[in-house]
Every structure is written in C-alpha cells, then in structure tokens.
C-alpha cells in the first residue's frame, strides 16, 4: 500500500470518480443535444411568451461545444473542487493528519499523489466529456476541426489544473473540507469579475476555461490565450509551492 494507491482507492472506493465522470459525460452528451434541439424544446415548453417571438438561428457545430463548456465550467468545476478538497484537505480530521505527518517528513510526499491523481481524474473526466460533446456535435450538427478541439481541450484542462492547485493551497490553511470548498469557490467566483475588464480578463486563468468553446467557434485563436496560459502556469506552480509550505508549517 503506497500513497499513490491510497489516492487511487480514494477515487474508486468512495465512488468519487463516478461523480466526476458522470457530471462531465452528462453535460458532454447533453450540450450538443440542447444546441441542436433548443428550438424544439422551446416549442414543446409552450412557446407562449406573451406575444414575443424568439427566432433562433440554425445551430452551428460550435454551439455544441459552447453548451458543454458552459455547464462544465460551472457544475463540473464545483464537483471538481469538492473532490479535490476531499483529497487535499488531509488535516481536516486531525487524527488522520497525524497518521501521515508522523510517518512522512516531507509534505511533498503526501501532496504529490493527492494532487496528481485528482488532476488526472478531473482532467480525464473533462476530456472524456469534451470528446463525447465533440462526437455528438458531429453526429447532430456538424464536424469541428480536430486541431481546434484539441487545443481547446488542452487550454481548458490547464485551467482545471490551476483549480486543483488552488484547492491544494487553500487546504493548507483551511481547517475543514467545507471551508476549503467555500474559499476555493469564492476565489473562482471573484476571478471572472476582474475578467469583465478585457485587458485584465485575457490574463486570468479563468479565461482558459472558455477556450474549448471559443477556439472551435473561431472567435479566438490559440495566440489569444498565450497571456492567460503563461499566468496560469506560473500561478499553478506558485500555488503548489504555497500548498507545500502551508502544509509544512501547520501545527496540529
């Protein structure tokens, strides 16, 4: 039994992987379906809008991805934060923290498998959902360029790596799983507010989250994401350094 196997078992035995895969796959399948049949859905809903008429343009392939990204960035990220906090807030129950801390002197040994396994599960689930959305978009609306989709998946995945690193750093200071979740969500909610100013927004990690929608739609190119990519990589590394320092300096 190693700390790596422990994290793998945490995912499988607690069924957390089902929550991650389930939510991303669900939205991956639902997104293109919604984009393709939104008009019919509104008609079935009654269509009585007190005289107002909604005319929807014919769906285009990029709409399928946009629907997926919209849901994955909200509900999916929330689930990812909860799963990450459950793994990374290892001092939330002090007796469990003592078990590890009195046997492992270097906190990197504890945090590395927790961070890596969580990132793999979150990113893997997001990519799986993205591939499902891509396939269904092709089947229902039309094809999207593979290069654009892969680039979008990579950049959006980088944002998720940042999210898990943020949770790791917060967990080093918060005293509970709930506290870790709440603070992390607060930070993630505040970030897009700064992003309303475009000059700032294109530098923020949250800008990467929408890449899977924007690049296939052609509204932004890969080069538009360079500033946010650089900031996200630097911020992720900094957050991981902070996570190790916070964990090492904590008293139980």
């Amino acid at each position, binding site marked *: *039994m*190693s*700390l790596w196997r*422990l994290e793998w*078992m*945490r995912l499988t*035995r*607690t069924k957390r992987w089902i929550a991650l895969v389930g939510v991303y796959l669900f939205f991956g399948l639902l997104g293109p379906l919604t984009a393709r049949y939104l008009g019919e859905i509104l008609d079935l809903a009654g269509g009585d809008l007190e005289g107002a008429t909604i005319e929807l343009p014919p769906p285009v392939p990029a709409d399928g991805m946009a629907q997926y990204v919209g849901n994955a960035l909200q509900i999916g990220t929330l689930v990812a934060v909860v799963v990450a906090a459950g793994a990374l807030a290892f001092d939330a*129950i*002090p*007796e*469990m923290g*003592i*078990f*590890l*801390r*009195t*046997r*492992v*002197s270097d906190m990197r040994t504890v945090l590395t498998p927790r961070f890596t396994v969580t990132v793999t599960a979150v990113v893997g689930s997001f990519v799986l959902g993205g591939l499902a959305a891509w396939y269904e978009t092709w089947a229902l609306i039309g094809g999207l360029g593979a290069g654009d989709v892969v680039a979008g998946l990579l950049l959006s995945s980088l944002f998720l790596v940042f999210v898990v690193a943020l949770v790791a750093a917060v967990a080093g200071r918060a005293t509970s799983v709930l506290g870790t979740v709440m603070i992390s969500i607060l930070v993630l909610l505040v970030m897009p507010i700064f992003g309303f100013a475009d000059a700032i927004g294109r530098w923020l990690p949250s800008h990467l989250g929408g890449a899977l929608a924007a690049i296939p739609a052609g509204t932004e190119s890969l080069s538009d994401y360079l500033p946010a990519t650089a900031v996200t990589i630097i911020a992720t590394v900094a957050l991981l350094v902070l996570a190790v320092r916070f964990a090492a300096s904590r*008293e*139980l």
Partner: protein
Amino acid sequence: MIRTTDLVKRYGTTEALRYVDLAVDPGSTYGLVGPNGAGKTTLLGILAGLRRPTSGSIEIDVDRSRIAVLPDTPRFDPWLTGREVAELAQRLTTGDGDRVEEVLSDAGLADAMDRTVGGYSRGMLQRLGVACTIVGRPSLVLLDEPASSLDPLGRREVLDLIGRLKGSATILFSSHILADVQEVCDTVGILDHGDLVFQGSVDALLVGQAVPRYRVRVRPPSDAVADALEQHDWVHAVEQNGADELRVTVSSLDDAESKLAGALAGAGAKVISIGPEAVTLEQAFLEVTR
C-alpha cells in the same frame, strides 16, 4: 532518549507549557500524568514534531523515522481495511509490509483485518492504532491517552499491548488514569497547568512525594495515645480513624522507623499492628498537585 530544556509553549497569552525539563531515559516506560488541560497533549505534540515550541530546546536521540505516535482517538479512512491501514503505516515507516499480519493478530484483529475500518468499534480502532504504531518497529513510542476512552475490556487489551512493547522501545505514555500509569510505567512525570511538578520513578513518587504516614492499630481507647504522639516534634498530625486506628503523619519515614515504636511504648499503647500507609498514585498525585 528525550531531554527538553526550558520548554515553553504559548497559545496567545495562555501558557500551555512552562519551562518543562523532561527527561526520558532509553528503554523506560514514562507515564505523563495530569488533569485535563495540563499540557500533556501539547507536550507530546511538540515531541512528535506536530507543534513547535515557543522557546526552549528538545533533544531526541533517535531518528525522526523511528518515532511512532498514537493520538488519543485514532481515525483512518473508513473505506480502507484494517490490513490496508497497517500496510500503509509500515510502508511509510520501513518501506515493507512483512509484519502486518503479525501485529494485527497481536492486536486481536486477526478476524477483522479484511473488514473496512468504518465498521470497527472504538476499541478496535484503538487497537488498530496501536498496531500501526508498532508495525514499523519504532525506537520511541509516544502514546496520547491510549486507553482513556475505552471500556474496561478494551482498556485491558490496549494496556497489554503496551506492556508487550516494554523492552523493545522507549515509551512515553500520557494518561489521566493513574491506575494505568501505575501498572505500566516505571517513571512518572506530573504536569499541572503546564508545569512539570514531579519527575522520577513511580516508587519515588509514592514514597518520597506523598506525605509519610503510618497506620497504627492499638487496643482502645486510643485517645491518650494520640495525645501523647502529638507531643513529639517529628509527628505532624494524628488522626483517629475509629476507636482503634490512628493515622500518624510524620516528618519523614526515617523518623517514624527509628522513633515511632518507642513513642508508642512510651505512651503505654497496646499495639496490634503498625506499618506505613500504602499510598496510591492517586493520593501521591493529589499531594503533588495540591
């Protein structure tokens, strides 16, 4: 094995430990006793590296990897089996897993080792905690109130497990159950409001720190004998306990041994029995912390 010098720990303005000079000899079983809030857990936490002292120094003559710690209420991921928890504990300390079944059997968990610990009772968790503590063959074992929350049977099992560790490791064991300390430990330290008010062998505490007192049975009436004994300057007090028993508090056991028999004879007492009062650790503890 362990030496602390002027160890101080403050939480804000509260002093949890005040200039503690702890001395734990190699191979000893040291009982750290004190009421709740005395600073026992804080001291163990500092020795375990889980907390930092505000000031003072600590010397521990053993590598950090050879120190094992058991918190008062050990908890584990409930979806792991007892075997997996012990395997993880050994893997993180020695790198292998060859002693897992042996220690789990010693802890009485042979039949439960493949069940998830979420279904374990409090006593089973405590025994699993002890098993995880000893699986890595530690040189120094720090146990925080290992049996205080258990029922008598569970307490007995944990004390037996600790007893079996004697000789193979130095044990520092905190408790507020004095009978446990008296049974298991050869050395005792008493913490009171952050002060280490006594440190020494259990015998030294029982004999030296407690008030020396003799229990004398005489043929009634005993009033005159009591009055006569009180005239001696080495007799501090005489309490009558019924018609035929006197509890004589003396300045020292040496005075009592050399003078008490003569004083009783001089008082015309018809002595039935005489002997030093057996002092329990609880009485000694109360004397020291009074």
